[in-house]
């Protein structure tokens, strides 16, 4: 029986990777995404333009403008001469934010009276705008600090696990989870649907293989795809992007296998509900897009409303991202990782049993 299972797995792998198109589509998208996304998916503010409307012209405002221009994030600082121009600059998005100094600014700074600098940001690009405004505020506050006569209290900030807040160190471990999702789900979900459409599923059923064996035979290639693609991206993260690897390789592999199992379970469940490839594909898609959004990749889970946090709690991507990030950045150990591994195994168990019972019902 074991022999038959091996043969089935080999047949499945051949179906997926047998053609040139198939091989290309398993490898090329992974390479492409690993190369493009870490550079595209950045919430850092860089190469931003800021517009300055300086009604003052005194020493204090000029010094602050000079410092803003030297800030790495703002590569382009240009001057405006009226409130209408400020409106226009934000309207057409030629500047991410506009800084406005009132006419008596430098004078008030000299006499130590309270005064205000106004920053206007483009709400259409609200995240970048806020981060840009943070940078500008830090520059202004730094200037304020230096003016203060006797500074006695300081606040030092240290970023653990990622000292320079390098966004790629957040993106790449998350990509290990996200990119492998597509491959694994497509292989498992579409395989059954395609067999239905081509009529070869009936041939499988006539063979001595029981539905349980058929399911294992379809799940294993999915797990293999997940592990291989995930390892490739992890290697690229370590060697090409320099993300530090502080945990254990064995734990990473274990995490990928458990994740592959969970995904294969979901894929087989979707395929047990579909009768055509289009349905399977769209089902995969309908699962994948909310799963990526609710995984903590784009936004931390604690920022989401409670209902959506529950969805995030049953989402395999959430746990995979936590495991991979933990292994890369936080030196995650097996004991702590168990908290993330058992949900994956539970999801795998539930989805695989559901898929199996639906298969059996189809056959009967």
């Amino acid at each position, binding site marked *: 029986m074991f022999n038959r299972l091996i043969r089935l797995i080999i047949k499945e792998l051949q179906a997926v990777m047998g053609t040139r198109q198939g091989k290309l589509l398993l490898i090329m998208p992974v390479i492409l995404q690993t190369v493009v996304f870490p550079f595209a998916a950045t919430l850092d503010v860089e190469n931003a333009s800021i517009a300055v409307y300086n009604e003052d012209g005194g020493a204090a405002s000029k010094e602050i403008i000079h410092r803003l221009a030297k800030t790495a994030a703002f590569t382009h600082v240009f001057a405006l001469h009226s409130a209408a121009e400020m409106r226009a600059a934000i309207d057409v998005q030629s500047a991410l934010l506009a800084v406005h100094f009132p006419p008596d600014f430098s004078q008030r700074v000299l006499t130590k009276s309270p005064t205000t600098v106004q920053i206007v940001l483009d709400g259409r690009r609200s995240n970048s705008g806020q981060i840009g405004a943070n940078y500008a505020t830090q520059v202004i506050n730094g200037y304020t600090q230096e003016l203060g006569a006797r500074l006695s209290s*300081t606040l030092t900030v240290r*970023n653990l696990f990622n000292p320079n807040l390098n966004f790629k160190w957040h993106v790449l471990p998350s990509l290990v989870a996200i990119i492998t999702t597509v491959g694994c789900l*497509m292989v498992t979900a579409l395989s059954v649907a395609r067999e239905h459409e081509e009529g070869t599923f009936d041939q499988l059923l006539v063979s001595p293989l029981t539905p349980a064996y058929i399911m294992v035979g379809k799940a294993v290639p999915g797990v293999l795809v997940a592990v291989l693609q995930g390892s490739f991206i992890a290697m690229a993260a370590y060697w090409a992007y320099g993300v530090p690897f502080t945990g254990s390789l064995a734990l990473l592999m274990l995490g990928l296998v458990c994740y592959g199992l969970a995904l294969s379970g979901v894929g087989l469940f979707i395929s047990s509900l*579909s009768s055509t490839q289009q349905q399977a594909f769209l089902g995969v*898609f309908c699962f994948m*897009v909310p799963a990526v959004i609710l995984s903590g990749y784009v936004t931390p889970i604690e920022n989401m409303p409670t209902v*959506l946090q529950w969805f995030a709690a049953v989402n395999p991507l959430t746990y995979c991202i936590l495991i991979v990030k933990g292994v890369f950045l936080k030196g995650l150990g097996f004991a702590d990782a168990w908290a993330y591994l058992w949900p994956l195994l539970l999801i795998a168990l539930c989805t695989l049993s559901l898929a199996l019972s639906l298969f059996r019902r189809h056959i009967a």
Partner: protein
Amino acid sequence: MSSLSRHRLLALCRKEAFQIVRDPSSILVAFILPVVLLFVLGYAVNMDADHLRLGLLREDSGLAAQRFEQTLVANKSFAITIGSSRAELMAKLTRGEVRGIVIVPADFSAKLARGQEYAALQLLTDGSEPNTAQFVASYVQGAWESWQQSMSQDRVLPQQAPISVSVRTWFNPASVSRNFLAPGSIAVVMTIIGALLTSLVVAREWERGTMEALLATPVTRAELLLSKILPYYVLGIAAMVLCLLVAVFVMNVPFRGSLLALFGISTLFLGCALGLGLFLSTALRSQFNAAQAALVAAFLPAMMLSGFVFEIASMPTVLQWLTRIIPARYFASSMQTLFQAGTIASVLIPNAVFLALLSAFWLGLTAKKTRRTLD
């Protein structure tokens, strides 16, 4: 130039329409998925940090330290967990239960009173979530500054020239992420319908053998293509209208532009998306492969490279040039402007021109690739 028979075209469109309606997954993707996406994107993706979980370790019992703790606890943006030891809070940080730890060392108030050396407060953030860490740092700094202000007003700290910064947001005063994400998510929805659904359409006919039957009829290339484009165009516009209604009436996203401009730009974008999807379908002839290719070539660029979530200006120059050939970029920018700002011609007209060029390219390429032969 092959002639176009209206009669045949209508018959083919009817056939496509039947096929779409009969398959529940098309309805799912055209109407249910967009609404689900709008809600998920609108309510889940909240990059504004308004509820930051912090741990506080106050090793000092002096007045200044207590005042600082009160400032933090009173601040509505924070959920403070008072910790009893560094190890305990560090464990919480590693597990992600808090996103930052504020440490007030034991000699803090004493150093402050002496006024001779710097009395240092320490903030440790969770760098594995860089965006949140930035927010934590800037919010804690804000709280620290307001603590300093109140201390100096009580003459506990020396006066400093108080330059305050007031930040105002235009076009989205409450900085509601939803207003910013809803227009962009419409762009994603249109890409799904335009490119993903059509990528399966032609390939399916080849796989099932119905293409051969179709080619045996007098149907011309133009009719074949149009019969694939028109029904999915109608579906795309219907989905767009549904998203617009949900966004404006259910989610209270403002729409300040003109509907005419919205339909015009949507038509141009759908032209690009449909062209791309049909091209992949025609070239690859396998549903499995066309689906994957459509995901990589249409959907992922729409999510990642359109400026919808990630700022194009922050990307390296090479990628910025790459985004110029991605239709979703122009569409997302037009949507943002139409929803939040208004019908600003200087933004919309260049976008429309690029979209027209791209759609001519993709549709033309598909037309060239479509042949009336079997090979």
